[in-house]
């Protein structure tokens, strides 16, 4: 038999096209007679739209049409829906203000779309958009959450006078209060989880098309989940039956969460295509991405942890304010609740946890899931406070974790914040990481750095994340307005090649390779005979797409289920061909055989018999070999691991240099170690980016200060080191592949590890806290302030 494909570092099948310029991203697609859409966006963070005069623009050269929100309303176009209803304290439903495709009453953030100009060329559309005269009445704006919650603050929405979307809680408050009352030590921290701009390298784009002959629409879009866009846009916004709407997400140049959501531009090009009878194309400039792609993080948190005299955690108390921005993005409300607060147990046995989350409207771009989505925020908070607690109690940072870890023997483990972990060996991950980084030799390295005038620090982050949100019934009970399963179809062709249709979507993850590896082993078919098809609602039955590290755990499991059905039918066909009883037929390595005999038939021959059924059990079986399965997981999967950063600070400049970074992760069973390592590398750099470089800044009146790559510091190659990554495979117990997912882990662990290292390096100067990003300026200032404080104390 061929060597197993699963577990091998098979080179990617998608690379040939992507390396030669043969990829097809949305902006690479051009449709006959297409027009170009330019959006008129609000330059104000908060303003009443008094009047829009489009007459000059409409008469400009090359302009086909100008539309405003009034035109959409006339056609009964609905608002952009929110996909998750969070219920706050006492079951109070969150405030869910309308989110119009084009704002008609007020602009609520910089970049809020007001009107569109459609023209024969990109240039004509752009020029004419300048001619659209919008009469704004500027209103006081509020960008900061604390300011937004103050009495008398400008209300972003009339429906939420106090700017509060919801006030939500989880956990046992009384038990937490009781534990704090008897604590030997309490550690407190107040921190900000800075707002980030996802910045996938491909800006969003969309092309809408209407076919007069069939009455059908096609939308090409840069989406992580084309079926979800079809559902949301078709059912809620444009009211197009799904049978008349095809959504295609071709090659997509990165997503990181920002391409999950249904955006106004998708509805606009689709609606306008019918209106003008020509295809309509829109491609974002990077500047537009900065003010229209949903942004990430943005929490302000106060937290305290209670310990007994041995350093055992007794309780955790957390108060978080989470910024929703000017509108609720598709999954915005779910991120700081079900993907954040439920992770606050981390890897620890903390018996009592209470968390309150206030979600706040501000005049800023909407906030939603960005790689990690709630889990980096939870990990950052927990790991920062744990290292502070270690420092305060004089317990070694590894030892305090060791004392509090949930042991593998306690699995499955029910946390006090709803989740039930199924598996993981947390101690082993940490011990492996400590060995990799040579923790024992750290003191020597620190002394050596000191000799060179540098401040060395070491920081750890252990994390657990909940991936593959599930099961649908539970998610539904918690407010999800969608199912969270995945579909797959495994279709044999008559000559033995296989096409697999998956509802997962790849935008860098390499599914065309990893999924094919799973199928090659499962069916015993050479990998070159397997095609993976994704990203087209006309080809694939249904799909929930790719986010939350769910593709292999949920999408891969659906493929296994479909293969099981193919094999079950194949056994019956093979039994007929071999004149044996079906109970005696076994399947292995692509061959059906009769147990205890040398009779066998290849799966390709079975496929041929199914499609050319001359000798076939017609009474009991239909011809064909093509099976579809839906897989709804029983639980989340729980990837976990330990990341350690060692850094060196130049106190003269405040520059943080990462000396080394080691990650040990448990992603369950690994399908392709090369691809998994790549996911970790990329995630880690996004985590480092948040910790040291990236920061989305608004002025107090809501102007976006960091609106381009000039001002928003993206990690470059010389900002980061090479990494050492390793995995421990503790299989997931409840899915057929034993997989957990690996897409977000790097981003979750890295930020906390790096910031703990920075604080560790500065702790000798009496500095116990620094917020992200630890830019040279921030670090230098902290050092100067500390020096001045010490000098003053001496006087």
């Amino acid at each position, binding site marked *: 038999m061929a060597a197993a494909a699963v577990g091998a570092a098979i*080179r*990617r099948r*998608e*690379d*040939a*096209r*992507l*390396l*030669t*310029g*043969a*990829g*097809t*991203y949305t*902006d*690479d697609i051009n449709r006959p007679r297409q027009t170009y859409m330019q959006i008129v966006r609000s330059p104000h963070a908060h303003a009443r739209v008094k009047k829009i005069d489009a007459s000059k623009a409409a008469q400009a050269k090359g302009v086909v049409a100008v539309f405003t929100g009034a035109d959409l309303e006339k056609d009964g176009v609905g608002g952009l829906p929110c996909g998750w209803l969070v219920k706050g304290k006492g079951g109070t439903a969150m405030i869910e203000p309308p989110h119009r495709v084009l704002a008609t009453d007020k602009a609520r953030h910089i970049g809020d779309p007001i009107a569109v100009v459609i023209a024969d060329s990109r*240039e004509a559309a752009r020029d004419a958009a300048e001619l659209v005269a919008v009469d704004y009445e500027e209103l006081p704006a509020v960008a900061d959450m604390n300011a937004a919650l103050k009495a008398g603050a400008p209300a972003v929405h009339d429906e939420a006078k106090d700017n509060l979307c919801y006030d939500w809680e989880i956990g046992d408050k009384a038990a937490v209060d009781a534990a704090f009352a008897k604590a030997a030590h309490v550690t407190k921290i107040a921190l900000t989880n800075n707002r980030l701009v996802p*910045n*996938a*390298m*491909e*800006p969003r784009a969309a092309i809408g098309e209407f076919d007069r002959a069939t009455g059908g629409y096609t939308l090409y879009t840069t989406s992580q989940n084309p079926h979800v866009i079809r559902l949301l846009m078709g059912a809620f916004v444009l009211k197009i039956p799904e049978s008349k709407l095809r959504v295609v997400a071709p*090659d*997509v*140049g*990165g997503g*990181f969460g920002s391409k999950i959501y249904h955006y106004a531009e998708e509805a606009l090009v689709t609606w306008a295509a019918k209106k003008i009878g020509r295809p309509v194309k829109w*491609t974002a*400039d*990077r*500047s537009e991405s900065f003010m229209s792609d949903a942004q990430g993080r943005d929490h302000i948190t106060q937290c305290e942890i209670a310990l007994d005299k041995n350093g055992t955690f007794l309780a955790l108390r957390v108060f978080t304010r989470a910024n929703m921005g000017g509108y609720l993005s598709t999954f915005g409300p779910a991120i700081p609740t079900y993907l954040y607060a439920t992770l606050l147990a981390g890897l620890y046995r903390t018996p009592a946890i209470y968390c309150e989350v206030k979600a706040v409207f501000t005049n800023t771009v909407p906030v939603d899931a960005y790689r990690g989505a709630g889990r980096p925020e939870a990990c950052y908070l927990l790991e920062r406070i744990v290292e502070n607690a270690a420092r305060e109690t004089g317990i070694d940072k590894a030892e305090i974790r060791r004392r509090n870890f949930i042991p593998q023997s306690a699995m499955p483990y029910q946390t006090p914040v709803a989740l039930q972990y199924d598996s993981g060996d947390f101690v082993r991950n940490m011990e492996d990481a400590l060995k990799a980084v040579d923790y024992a030799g750290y003191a020597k390295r620190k002394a050596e750095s000191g000799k060179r005038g540098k401040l060395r620090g070491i920081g750890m982050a252990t994390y657990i994340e909940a991936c593959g949100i599930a099961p649908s019934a539970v998610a539904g009970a918690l407010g999800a307005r969608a199912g969270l399963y995945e579909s797959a179809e495994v279709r044999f062709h008559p000559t033995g090649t296989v096409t697999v249709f998956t509802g997962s979507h790849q*935008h*860098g*993850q*390499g599914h065309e390779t990893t999924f094919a590896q799973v199928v090659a082993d499962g069916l015993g078919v050479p990998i070159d005979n397997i095609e993976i098809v994704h990203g087209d609602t006309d080809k694939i039955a249904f799909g929930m797409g790719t986010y939350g590290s769910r593709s292999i755990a949920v999408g891969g499991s659906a493929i296994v289920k479909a293969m099981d059905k193919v094999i079950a039918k194949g056994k019956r066909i093979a039994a007929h061909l071999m004149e044996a009883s079906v109970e005696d037929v076994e399947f292995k390595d692509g061959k059906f055989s009769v147990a205890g005999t040398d009779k066998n038939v290849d799966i390709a021959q079975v496929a041929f018999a199914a499609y050319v059924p001359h000798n076939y059990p017609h009474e009991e079986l239909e011809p064909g070999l093509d099976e579809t399965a839906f897989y709804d997981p029983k639980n989340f999967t729980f990837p976990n691991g330990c990341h350690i950063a060692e850094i060196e600070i130049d106190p003269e400049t405040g520059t943080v240099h990462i000396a080394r970074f080691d990650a040990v992760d448990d992603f369950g069973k690994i399908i392709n170690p*090369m*691809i998994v*390592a*790549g996911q970790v*590398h*990329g*995630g*880690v*750099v*996004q985590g480092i980016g948040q910790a040291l470089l990236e920061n989305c800044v608004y002025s107090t009146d809501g102007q976006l200060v960091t609106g*381009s*790559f*000039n001002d928003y510091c*993206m*990690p*470059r*190659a*010389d900002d*980061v080191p*090479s*990494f050492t990554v390793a995995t421990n495979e503790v299989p997931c117990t409840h899915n057929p592949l034993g997989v957990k997912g690996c897409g977000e882990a*790097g981003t979750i662990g890295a930020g906390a590890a790096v910031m703990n290292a920075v604080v560790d390096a500065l702790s000798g100067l009496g500095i116990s806290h620094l917020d992200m990003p630890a830019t040279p300026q921030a670090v230098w200032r902290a050092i100067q302030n500390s020096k001045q404080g010490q000098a003053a104390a001496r006087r």
Partner: protein
Amino acid sequence: MASVSMTVNGKKVSADVENRTLLVQYLRENLGLTGTHVGCDTSQCGACVVEYNGEAVKSCTVLAVQADGANVKTIEGLANGDELHPMQAMFREHHALQCGFCTPGMVIAAVDMCNRYKKLGKKLDEKAVRHELEGNFCRCTGYHNIVKAILAAAPQLGA
């Protein structure tokens, strides 16, 4: 409107373009060479890097009319038929691409880096590669494997 002629991937091409047309627009929209990408509007991301008269240049910083008479090579012209250029081959071997959007610009920039070091008779090391990549963003790979791929291809390209 102005008329421009240039050589792109060994072929002579000409067209009438609006004066404000950027080289990257001309390549993508007039010639259909969509392998060259646009990732920003401030000339920082490097997704649009092409070889321009023998040097790596961000094609969003050049007007099509400026390129009149120029010799341009894009990612579509790099491989020798079905045989990948060594830099492309090493990117594949070392998993130096994920979504692939930054890849064409990254590969062209990497080839140019090797060419320059070869001319200077210098060898690339990790530090030099990381420094040389400052004009190219990648959001997926964390650069780790890109650096590995370039260091693997460099000796084959004399750098």
